[in-house]
Structure formats: C-alpha cells, structure tokens
C-alpha cells in the first residue's frame, strides 16, 4: 500500500488544503508520496517534514503583501509581470530553512513540485531523490526556486529560472493543476487529492472590464478545466483496469490459459496497465466556490477555509474512495 497526497493550485485557497491535511493526519493517514502544484508546492515540503501546525501558522499569518507587491504603471510596462513576487521569494526562504531542507532530503517521502518549462512547453517535476539535471533537487536553492516557479502564475507573477542561465519556469497549473499522474506513476494505491475548486464553476454576474479581473476569471476557467481533466485521467485509469480485469476473466472462460497469456502479453503491443493496481481515489474539494480569488491572502478568511477543508476531508473519508 502506498499513500499519496496531491494538492492542486489555488493561491490562498491552499488554507482549505491545510485544514484537510490536518484532518487526514489526525486520522493517522501518512503519505509516501506528496505532489503539489502552485500553492500545493508551498504546502508539500511541510507535509514531508510533518509540520502541520507550523503549516497552519503560515497559512493564517501571511497577508497579500507577504506574497506579491504591486508594481507601478511604469514598472508594469518595463517588467515581465503585473506583480512582483519578491515577497513570496523571501517567504519561501524564511519557511524552508537549511534545517528543513535537510529533513526533506533525508525523508523517505517522495516529494514532487510541478512546474511548466516555458521554453520546452512541457511539465517538469522537481523531486528530492532524483539525481542529475532533469528535475533533480540538488541543493536548497533549486528547491526554493522550484517552489517559487510552481507558485508564480504567468503574466501576474514573473517567470523563474530555476537554474542560473537555464530555462524559465512558471506555475505548473498551466498544464497540470492536480498532479495525480506523477503519483500514479510512482505506484500510489491510495490517492488523496485535494482540489481547491468545486466540481462546477459558479456562473458570474460580474462585468469584466479590468484586465486583472478578466485574467483572474480566465485563470479560474482554465484551472477548473485543467483540474477536471487531471481527475478524469485518474478515473479513466481505474476504469481501464476494471475493464481489462473483466475482459481477462471472460477470456479465461473462452480460451486456454496459454491463449489468454498470449492475448494479454503481446510483446508487440505491451499492456500499459500490466502490474498496475486499482486506485483508491479520494477527491477532497469544496462544495461551493471558496470566498477568495486566490490572490488575496486574508488570515480571517483563510482560518474559515481551514474548517471547510477539515469538514471536506472528513466527508470524503466517510464516503470512501470513488467507485468506477
């Protein structure tokens, strides 16, 4: 059995995830794999070090000005983003101390930080146990920059060069908001996925005039779509395994053992699901839209979102894994 925790992106809505994780840990659920995108990548390291109360403290103490700084019109025209994310960079440096970095490196828990490589256009995961240049967290600076890149929404926040002079990276949510696939690829059997948006996006009565508001709405729509695709991939994975299992049982009744073996072990067409297990998939998400755009960090609202997260985790555990 391998437990995986996957935390999606959503800025300050990450407080919902912190509440949910707290409840899961109170239920003695431990994680072997932790994967996060955007705000999820800020949460992941402290789940690996199992400092949930510290995480609660961080997510109820930070304010918007601790994450982003507004630029002047002149600065916007001459810079690569609408906001400056140097405050977030400073926060990440404060939270992920050299001591914590060492704990993460020494931990048996596999951690994955999801980013998108702007030059290559693909998703890149950063893991503390991967050696070499491709996604390997070789030092503290790489980890800090990977977290920053994963959390920087394109256009709103600057792109990040994780390695000096290397490619630029941005929020992993552009391509994968809930990084379920990396957890499945690493053998997760019980997958707890915390998604920070409800199943259906609520209609909006707002007239979109301001660029930032329009962009935030666009991000909401895009992230909802990306998240639903990520979840449906995991559901489809389960459906395929169930279907193949049924097919195999049926074939056993009609064919000889050798024929069945030949049918399901064709070297020319290898079975991609060979040796894979059915996933116990728990989706923990809010029932309604959370009361923030994700870019506003207000301790009061974040405290309330934590309670919603705790309740959603409790409900998801009671309901049991998603059935196919």
């Amino acid at each position: 059995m391998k437990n995986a925790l996957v935390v999606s992106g959503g800025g300050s809505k990450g407080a919902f995830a912190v509440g949910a994780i707290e409840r899961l840990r109170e239920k003695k659920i431990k994680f072997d794999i932790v994967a996060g995108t955007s705000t999820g990548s800020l949460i992941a390291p402290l789940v690996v070090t199992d400092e949930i109360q510290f995480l609660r403290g961080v997510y109820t103490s930070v304010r918007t000005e601790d994450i982003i700084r507004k630029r002047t019109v002149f600065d916007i025209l001459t810079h690569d983003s609408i906001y400056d994310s140097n405050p977030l960079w400073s926060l990440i440096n404060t939270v992920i101390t050299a001591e914590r970095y060492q704990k993460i490196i020494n931990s048996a828990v596999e951690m994955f930080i999801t980013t998108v490589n702007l030059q290559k256009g693909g998703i890149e995961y950063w893991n503390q146990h991967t050696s070499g240049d491709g996604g390997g967290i070789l030092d503290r600076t790489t980890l800090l920059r990977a977290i920053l890149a994963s959390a920087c929404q394109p256009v709103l926040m600057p792109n990040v060069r994780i390695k000096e002079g290397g490619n630029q990276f941005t929020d992993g949510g552009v391509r994968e908001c809930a990084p379920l696939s990396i957890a499945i690829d690493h053998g997760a059997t019980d997958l707890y996925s915390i998604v920070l948006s409800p199943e259906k996006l609520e209609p909006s009565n707002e007239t979109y005039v301001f660029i930032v508001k329009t962009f935030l709405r666009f991000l909401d729509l895009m992230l909802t779509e990306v998240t639903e695709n990520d979840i449906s991939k995991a559901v489809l994975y389960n459906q395929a395994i169930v279907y193949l299992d049924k097919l195999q049982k049926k074939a056993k009744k009609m064919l000889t053992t050798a024929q069945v073996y030949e049918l399901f072990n064709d070297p020319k067409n290898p079975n991609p699901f060979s040796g894979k297990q059915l996933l116990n998939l728990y989706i923990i998400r809010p029932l309604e839209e959370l009361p923030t755009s994700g870019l506003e960090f207000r301790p009061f609202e974040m405290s309330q979102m934590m309670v919603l997260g705790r309740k959603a985790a409790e409900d998801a555990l009671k309901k049991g894994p998603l059935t196919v």
Partner: protein
Amino acid sequence: MIQSKFRRHSYNQSLKLIPFLTVVVMMFLSSCIETRFLEYPESHRLLNEIQKWPDEYYWNIETGVFSRVLGNSTVEQSKSLLTQMVQDWDAIVVLDTSEKLINYFQEHNLFPIAEAIQETLIANAEQESTGELNSWLQAKAIKVGLINAYDEIMKNTSG
C-alpha cells in the same frame, strides 16, 4: 474662424504625436526587464513573528488559537465571543496557565474559545521541540492569539 483654424491646428498637432507615443510605448514593451530574485532576500516579516518566541512551538500555539477561534464559529459568533472576552480582559490577562484560561472561559460560558485552546494544545502536543514546556509562555501565546483574533475580526467587520 480663427478659433476653428486653431482647433484644427492643435488637432493635427495631436495626431502627429500618435506615432511618437506609439514608439515610446513600443520602447517600454520591448525593454521588459526580467525580474531578478535576490540570492539573499531581505528578512521576511514572518521570521520576526516566529522569532518573538524562544521556540516555534509557542508560535504554533499563538497562530493555532488565532485560526481556531476565527474559524470554528461564524463571523457574528466569533465577534460576540471575542468582544465579551475583551470586556473581561483585565481578569483574563493575569491568568498564567492554559488550565486557568480554559477554566475561565468555561465558567464564563465562552465555550468555543475554551474548545479552540484545547484543540490547539492537543494538535501541538507532540511538537514541543525543547521538551521543556514553559506554561507561562504557553498561556502568553494563547493570549496573544486571542487578542490577534479580536483585532482581525474587528478589522474585517468594521465599516
């Protein structure tokens, strides 16, 4: 007639400015500066908050009480509870252990506050890194968390 000529002249002059302005804007746009992140960024406010305490445990107690008091009740309930607490503050501030604080809130029908403190202490039970709990500091952290919660709710509900 002269006025109209003047207006037309200034209109024509303004039109001539458009290419100039376009060039200026294009210059701005094409000279985008990539944001640099400092190798040693300035100390974050949060670090000072944490360092107020001799151990991170007490910061966890402060923020834990703060978030539970605000999160466990509705806005109106939290406001009412915390307003009553502030009215009794002179009696509360002298209580120097968590037990005395919990008893006080239970005796004065401020049960959600007592529960928030109890939940915080339970959640942090295994996180005292020093292994030597200072009950005076623990009570102080609880009181700081409570007063921060009061300030926060007043800020959010005023006006």
